[in-house]
């Protein structure tokens, strides 16, 4: 249990020291509308859920999952099973966002993130062997990238 708290603290530290979103650019004159061809760009469910999000909120989500990926990748000895990861993820989310306006602000975001992680490691409590651990790290990075 002590290890889990240490890892949560590590996530919080990494998350806290990630660069904050930069200063807002000075307002520019609105460009004149010009007709453009319609291009359908496939978006991930995470990106889709965050379409209405502010830049700051996108950055908060991206920074959190980037930090989670770093912690899982650098210190896999403490996250040995899917249940270890579930506990770390749950407690870290609570530490980072509980009491803020983020939980539930973007409907479907929680499910989209869960689906992406579930696709990588499933939900059964099984050992996170190196190959599975790498899948999890990649999924966390994907969530971070899709949130940006």
């Amino acid at each position, binding site marked *: 249990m002590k290890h889990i708290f240490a890892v949560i603290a590590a996530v919080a530290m990494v998350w806290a020291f990630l660069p904050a979103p930069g200063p807002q650019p000075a307002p520019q004159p609105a460009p004149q509308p010009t007709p453009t061809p319609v291009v359908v760009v496939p978006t991930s469910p995470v990106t889709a859920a965050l379409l209405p999000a502010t830049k700051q909120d996108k950055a908060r989500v991206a920074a959190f999952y980037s930090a989670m990926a770093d912690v899982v990748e650098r210190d896999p000895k403490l996250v040995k099973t899917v249940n270890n990861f*579930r506990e770390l*993820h749950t407690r870290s989310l609570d530490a980072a966002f509980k009491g803020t306006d983020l*939980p539930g602000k973007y409907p479907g975001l929680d499910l989209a*993130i869960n689906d992406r992680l*579930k696709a990588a490691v499933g*939900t059964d*409590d*099984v050992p996170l062997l190196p190959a599975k651990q790498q899948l999890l790290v990649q999924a966390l990075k994907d969530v971070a990238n899709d949130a940006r």
Partner: protein
Amino acid sequence: MPDEPLFDSPEDLVRAYEAGGFQGYRPSERDKQEFLATNPVRAFDAPASGAGKRALLWGYTLALDPGAYSERQTVGDCVSHGSRNARDLTRAVSLLVDGDPFSWHKRTATEPTYGARGHGGEGMSPARASRFERDVGFLAREKFDGVVDLTNYDGHLGARWGRQGGTPSNVQDLCRRNKVGTITLITSVEQARDALFNGYGIHSGQMAAWSSKPNSQNIHGRSSPGWAHDMATVGMDFTRTHWPFDVFFIANSWGRWNTPVPKWPADYPPQPAGMIVTKADDWATCVHGGDCWVYSDVQGYPPRALPDLGSIGRI
């Protein structure tokens, strides 16, 4: 003077059920019809298909009760062990789905169910166990001051209650605080697969036996003569990733009676002592025998996504 155990060891159990024709499972068409006639749920409707999927549900029980599946029956109460293992599995999945592992409390007891078998001999019909657990209930493995101490398994307690006319009324009063929500008879392998995929435990009584030694296919093959026995089915793997065919996982109540399968997938929860790994085709006898029961902790069988990875409701 305490009763002598009927079975002293796993070997005793194998000998009695196999060569001695011991009947722990006593089929009763009358009990079944009485249960079904009073059951609010007529048929099991799978909320989601488990085709091509897997559900390693014993891992959920072990997460909350690391000693689960270790109780070895000492009398002919296999039906109450099978039903307990099914309902504890369903409870464990429910609590983990709800993110509420601290409500697990304790493993539940077998004795009140076995005491209600309706006769003084050994063995029980699964339908009668189902009816007791649906209409009366069950208790945790703990001491109930002034009434009964169920902290440690005592097969003779349930055996004695049966001889004395049934589970005592003050024990039944305590049981009424915890009832199994819904119990349904299932009749096909697909229903069993889907029940497990949605996190619902199963137990069944049948006349069938399995070898104590794994075969070259890395499973326990069927053997004869059959056992009149009840066991819980606690998982399935229909992905064909580790076996080239569909498999079910059965929890027995005989302790370390068999040799575990040697090639155990690294990404599986631990293999409990005595577990039977069987081909779905061989397992089909459990459902075709007509005494295969699915347990839900609530009314009906709502679809359940097995535990999320932490994000649901938190972001």
